[in-house]
C-alpha cells in the first residue's frame, strides 16, 4: 500500500528536515512539498532528497485550491491514502507505521482523522523535538470540547473525486469519515510556549517523537524502517477517554445528523414527482 503526503513548507529548515526524515521512515512513500521559495535553506533541504521521494513545487500562496491540486498530484503515482500536512506537524501512527494503520481501515471509510497534540516549545534554537517534550492531553478535560474539529486533522483515501477544504472535510467527494476514533496523532510544533498554547485538560510529557528522531539520526545515512510501538490495550483505554472527551458523537450530534438527512431526503422527494411529470409530458408530446 502506498501513502503520499502533501506538505505546506514553513521557514524553519531544521523542522522541515526532521519532518521529512520522520515521515519517510514512518510509512510515507513520497511527499509533494509546496515551497513558498522564500527561504534558501529550506529549499536546500527539500532538494537534498531524491526527487523520487520528495517532489518540490513552488507556490505563491497555499490556499484551498492548491491543497486539492497538491493532493491530486500526490495521488498521481498511485497513492491509496493522502495526508495533507504542514511542516510543523508530525503524523504519529497508533501502530507500527502509517502504512500499517491505514491498511487496516475498513474500506467503507474514506477519511480518517488525526488527533492534534499541541507541543509546548521551550527555549530557542536547535532541534525542536529535543527541546519540546511536553504536550496537551485531553485527559481530565472539562467536558466535551464543543468545537472538536479544531483538534482534528483529516487524511483521505485517494480517488478522483477528492476535494480538500479545511472548512468542511466531508467534501472529500463521497467519502465517509471514521468518527470517534483517531488512529493517528498529529504532533504540532507551532513554536508557542506554555503561556500561548490553549490547554483543554492537562499537560503531559511525551518523548515519542524525540526518541524516534534520535533513532533515525543514529542510523547510517538516516534510513531506518521505524517500527513504532504498538499501543497496548491499556494505552488504548486511556486514549479512548481522550477521544470521548472531544464529544464528536453523542445523542445531540446524532439528532442533528438525522435532521439533516431528513431535510435532504425531503428536498429530493419534492423534486421527484415534478421531474417525473415533466418527463411524462415530454414523452406524451413526442410524435408517434
Amino acid at each position, binding site marked *: 500500500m502506498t501513502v503520499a503526503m502533501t506538505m505546506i513548507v514553513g521557514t524553519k529548515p531544521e523542522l522541515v528536515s526532521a519532518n521529512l526524515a520522520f515521515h519517510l521512515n514512518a510509512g510515507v512513500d513520497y511527499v509533494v512539498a509546496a515551497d513558498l521559495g522564500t527561504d534558501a535553506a529550506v529549499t536546500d533541504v527539500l532538494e537534498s532528497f531524491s526527487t523520487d521521494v520528495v517532489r518540490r513545487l513552488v507556490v505563491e500562496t497555499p490556499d484551498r485550491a492548491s491543497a486539492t491540486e497538491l493532493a491530486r498530484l500526490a495521488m498521481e503515482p498511485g497513492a491509496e491514502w493522502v495526508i495533507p500536512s504542514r511542516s510543523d506537524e508530525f503524523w504519529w501512527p497508533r501502530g507500527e507505521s502509517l502504512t500499517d494503520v491505514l491498511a487496516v481501515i*475498513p474500506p467503507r471509510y474514506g477519511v480518517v482523522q488525526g488527533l492534534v497534540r499541541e507541543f509546548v516549545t521551550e527555549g530557542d534554537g536547535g532541534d525542536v523535538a529535543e527541546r519540546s517534550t511536553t504536550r496537551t492531553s485531553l485527559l481530565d478535560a472539562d467536558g466535551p470540547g464543543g468545537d472538536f474539529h479544531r483538534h482534528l486533522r483529516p487524511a483521505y483515501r485517494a480517488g478522483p473525486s477528492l476535494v480538500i477544504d479545511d472548512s468542511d472535510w466531508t467534501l472529500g467527494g463521497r467519502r*465517509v469519515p471514521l468518527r470517534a476514533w483517531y488512529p493517528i496523532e498529529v504532533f504540532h510544533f507551532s513554536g508557542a510556549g506554555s503561556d500561548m498554547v490553549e490547554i483543554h485538560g492537562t499537560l503531559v510529557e511525551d518523548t515519542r517523537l524525540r526518541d524516534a528522531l534520535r533513532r533515525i539520526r543514529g542510523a547510517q545515512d538516516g534510513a531506518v524502517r521505524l517500527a513504532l510501538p504498538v499501543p497496548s*490495550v491499556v494505552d488504548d483505554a486511556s486514549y479512548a477517554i481522550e477521544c470521548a472527551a472531544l464529544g464528536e458523537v453523542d445523542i445531540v450530534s446524532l439528532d442533528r*445528523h*438525522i435532521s*439533516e*438527512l431528513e431535510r435532504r431526503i425531503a428536498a429530493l422527494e419534492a423534486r421527484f414527482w415534478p421531474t417525473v411529470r415533466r418527463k411524462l409530458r415530454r414523452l406524451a408530446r413526442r410524435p408517434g
Partner: protein
Amino acid sequence: MKLVQTLVVRDEADIVDDHIAYHLDAGVDFVIASDHGSRDGTTEILEKYARDGCLQRIPVHGQMRDGPWRTDMARLAATEHRADWIINTDADEFWMPRGGSLRDVFAAVPEPYGVVFALSRHFVPRPDDGASFAERMTVRVSSPAAVNDPTSPYRPHLKVAHRADPGVTISFGAHLARSSRWRPLLHWHPADVLHFPFRSLRQWENKGVRRARGDKPLGQYVTAFRAREGGRTASRYQALVVEDRTLERGLQEGSLVSDFRLRDALRRLRGEPADAGPVGGEAGVIAESAGVREAELVRLERRLDVLCARTLGVEARTRAPAASR
C-alpha cells in the same frame, strides 16, 4: 424449559472441549454446531459429544457465511429440537449467567419479551507459560470509555439470545436477532459472555489469516494477515500480550480487572478446588453497559454517515445542490 445453543466453529481444538463441557454444565440442554471444515481435531471433539447425544454436528464448507449459518441453526433449534430459548455462540465465548443457571435467567424474562442481550467481557492474552488459556487468561478489559477503534478486538458489544422462532434471523457475529414474534428487552443483561478471542501466537495467526479472507474481514484479522505477509507475526502478537508491567498499570487505572470466574468454573468441572476471586461486581457491569451504549451511538452515527454519502450520490444524479453538514 429447553435451552439450545448454536455454535459456529473452525479449528478451535484448544478451546472447544471446554466450551461445550462448560455450557452443558451451565444449563444448556443441546448444542447445534456448524463445523466449518475443521482440521485440527475440533471435528473429533464435536463427534464425541454427538455420540453422547447432546450435540448435532453440521458440516459446512466453502466461503464463511456466518449470519446465514447461525440463522439456519437457530431455526432448526426451534423446529426440530423444540427449544424454548436459544443462545448463539462462538467457541471462544462462555455465557456466564448473572445469578443461578442459564435456564434460571432466561426463565425470568416475561413475555412478550423474547430477545435479550448479554454483555461481552473481553479477556486479554497473557504470556504463554504452557498452561491452558483459562488458567492464564484471568484478566479482562474494563475500559472507562468505549474503544471505538474499528480494528480493535476489544470494542464493546452485545451477544444475542432469543426465544424459539422458526422465522428468526441472526446477524453476523450474533449481535442481533430479528424476530417478528418476540420483543427485544434492552438495558438488562441476563449473562456475561466471557470472550477469549486471542489465546496463543499460533491461534491468533491462524484465525487472523483465515478470517481476513472470510465474508467480513475485520481489521483485527487483517492485522494478523498483514503481519504474517510481512514476516512480523511474533512481534505483532507480542504487542497484544499483556505483560506484568502493563497489567499493573491497567489494574491501577481501572482499564483491566482480574476475573477468575471461568478458570474456577472449569476447575470445578474437573473436580479441582477453585477459589472464587473478585469479578468487578455490579458497578463494573453498569459502567461497561454504558460503554456499550456509547459504542452503539457511534455505530449509528457511522451508519448515518454512509447513508449521507449515498444520499449525496442521489443528489448528484438528480442535479440537486449538494448539501453540506
